[in-house]
């Protein structure tokens, strides 16, 4: 049973990160996030990123590392490849064998890809698991409407589908022509100007390592549809009103104002769906001053709903963040389950809340894919 503590979401999800001008490729808009000061004491696990800086930091002792979900490396220590299972925090480079991993049996071709250490296997994260396990146990009270299967096995098997980044048209191209900013520690991916994913890491070098892996992440079918059907999005081009500019200094000030304006517009308008969403956070692991958590939204139909996983520091600033935008159907399923759970799985009570009758709610459950939970009536 998954339990989420009530909202203790960080006040500003993007504190300490500054928005830089976006880069557009077709329907894809990538917005870089830049950190003024990189976080030095949380870095990618050295198995993934054996940089010299990591070794230096290791001597200090107060050093943590993280492993994004499904990263393939020699986690088990016997030389065979394995995929990290779930995003994890680890205690510095000395610690070995504590990484939860799934052993992989490669065919020859896949093993070659693994050699470059860029392969993400089973691209699904902690957060998605949290969403899938939502009210997984099924009805808590055996009301007569629920089928025997629902009562004995809960929602199992619970399946959701998503697209691999490589299948999202234009995303791979957009990422390969993207010019990484100095100090960049994150990116927001928009498709047809709808926020598809947010990705933040502690250090620019980690970002450089992980940037190409964004195409091996999961994207919801909404994102895939937008990418396939929508025309290219326009650039937000700078515009300077030339009246009243008489010197280079004034021109420079006007140019700087353009950059600030974009930043403000983006943070308050474009990213609002994610920043302002009410969400439930669950702490998964704590290590040193860092906490690994996952979060679920309140499931508001017809709005952006992002699930995600994050590592926060002791002041609640995000050092690592990865989100997934749920598709409309997924939101509807989450919404129905959470409302049912709120009413102790009582159909009539839930139907009353929606202002419909039992039969209509049963219909709704059926279209949402939960038909097998209901007892068949003559």
């Amino acid at each position: 049973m998954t339990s989420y503590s009530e909202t203790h979401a960080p006040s500003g999800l993007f504190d300490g990160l500054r928005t830089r001008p976006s880069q557009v490729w077709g329907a894809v808009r990538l917005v870089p996030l830049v950190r003024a000061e990189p976080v030095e004491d949380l870095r990618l696990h050295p198995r993934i990123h054996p940089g010299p800086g990591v070794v230096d930091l290791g001597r200090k002792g107060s050093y943590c590392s993280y492993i994004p979900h499904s990263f393939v490396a020699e986690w088990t220590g016997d030389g065979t490849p394995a995929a990290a299972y779930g995003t994890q925090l680890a205690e510095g480079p000395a610690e070995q064998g504590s990484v939860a991993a799934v052993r992989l049996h490669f065919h020859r071709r896949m093993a070659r890809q693994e050699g470059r250490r860029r392969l993400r296997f089973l691209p699904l994260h902690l957060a998605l698991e949290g969403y899938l396990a939502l009210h997984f146990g099924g009805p808590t009270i055996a009301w007569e409407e629920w089928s025997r299967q629902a009562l004995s096995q809960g929602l199992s098997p619970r399946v959701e589908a998503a697209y691999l980044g490589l299948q999202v048209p234009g995303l791979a191209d957009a990422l390969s022509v993207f010019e990484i900013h100095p100090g960049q520690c994150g990116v927001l991916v928009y498709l047809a100007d709808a926020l598809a994913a947010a990705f933040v890491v502690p250090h620019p070098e980690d970002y450089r390592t992980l940037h190409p892996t964004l195409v091996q992440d999961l994207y919801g079918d909404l994102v895939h549809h937008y990418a396939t059907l929508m025309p290219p999005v326009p650039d937000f081009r700078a515009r300077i009103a030339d009246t009243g500019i008489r010197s280079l200094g004034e021109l420079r000030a006007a140019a700087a104002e353009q950059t600030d304006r974009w930043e403000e517009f983006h943070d308050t308008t474009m990213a609002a769906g994610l920043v302002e969403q009410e969400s439930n956070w669950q702490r998964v692991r704590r290590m040193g001053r860092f906490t690994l958590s996952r979060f679920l939204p309140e499931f508001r139909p017809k709005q952006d709903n992002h699930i995600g996983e994050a590592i926060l520091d002791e002041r609640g600033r995000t050092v690592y963040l990865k989100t997934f935008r749920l598709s409309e159907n997924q939101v509807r399923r989450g919404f129905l389950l959470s409302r049912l759970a709120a009413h102790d799985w009582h159909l009539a009570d839930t139907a009353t809340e929606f202002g419909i009758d039992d039969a209509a709610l049963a219909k709704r459950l059926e279209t949402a894919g939960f038909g097998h939970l209901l007892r068949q009536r003559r």
Partner: protein
Amino acid sequence: MESYGDLVAADDVLLFVNAAITATGQREFHADAGTQRLSLDFLHAYMLGNYRDLYAGVLALDINDHNAALIVRRLLETSAEATVEQRRSEGRLIAGRLALLPPQRVYGLFRALRRAGVNNRRTRALLRDWLAARPDLAFDAVKYRSGLKQALRHAHLAPGDGELGTFLFAPLSRAHYDTPILETWRRAHYEQAAVYELPYTVAEGFAAKHGIPRAVFLERIAPRMTRLEALRLQETAERRGVAEAVAVDLARMPLTRLAGYVLSLPVAERVERREELTGALRAAAARVAGVHRGTWGRVTAVLDDSFSSYGSGVKRRRPLAVAVACHYLLEALADRYAGLWTSGRREALLAHPVGPTPLGERILDALETAPDRLVIVSDGWDNAPPGLAAEVLRVWRTRIDPERRTSVVHLNPVYDADDFDVRRLAPSVPTAGVRDAEDLPALVEIAQFAEGRTGLAELTAYLDARAERLLAAPGQRTAAGGAR
């Protein structure tokens, strides 16, 4: 008075010239090879269909070899559509241009004509004349064996003397050749020493056949390499420990090639050899600048070393190499020079393609130095923030410097397949395509036309003048490529 049609024509020709200078039908940072080729093919078909005379006239400009060969091919393919007068002027332009092209390009062109089934009298005559003008046909028979063979077969020409014909069509049927190079080639089949008297590309095949170790081969073949071959093999020679034998005089290399070579070196080596490399680049730039040295007044350059200046796997770091070459050339041309890199880097020698393109900000920095000329070398993908460069240049021109004290020109090394042109920064700033920094002075000349102050009449006059120059000085560029 100029008609609307004339203005459109002038515009189209300039657009085509930019494309013909930059496009090579290869993969670029933002477009793949297929897109580039499709876009370029359309442009050629459009120009040929609408402005045949101007299309042929472009042959006289410093367009790249790929496009020169394409133009020649299309003109010959459509000979039937030309009037007698057109054919005469085209014939002279084509002959003049073929004399400038490196021989492997011309043989490639003949092969393409053969594949396309183009075998009119004009084509055969051009082929005959070009072959007759070759300094040493026996050398060509060895180095460009299949090319020459196909050309002769296609044009129904008899090779000069009996020996050449036998060599091409039944090479091993004779026990002895009188021509030294043909005899060397025959002996190279059996005798290792003879391999080292052949051109490098031919000798390489024989070296593989005889199983000669690479280091030994490189050391002994070095004197037979062209200088570009030697430049290309520097790294290999270093690895094999025969660097002295294959050593080249860097200062004598063409400027842009040299810049490309410098950028291919790891940063540590560039730091180590700083004096030598900088000296070579300066010497090459001074040679290009020639009499114009120090005559351009105060010049400031904005140079693009963003990630997109990496180009692509097939044109590795080409846009960045052009920027580095322009940096050294402008330094030579100017009285007082300042070069500003988009990444904020200070030293051109250590340039590396990384980061975004904050062109607008850098242009502001450049204008602060109050230059006479501002030269921008960039692929035009201004993205931090997008469009700021255009706004800065517009406001500068309309509000701060309406008297045009500072002349601004934008040079773009990358063809944009979607726009059929190089990407422009602002309508008020002339943009010209650039392939080799060596052409920079001529390009600044052309860029004046792009500012929209000159019409078709001037442009035609300019093309005619260039055609005269082309025909007056044949073979001036053969020294740059090809054989040493």
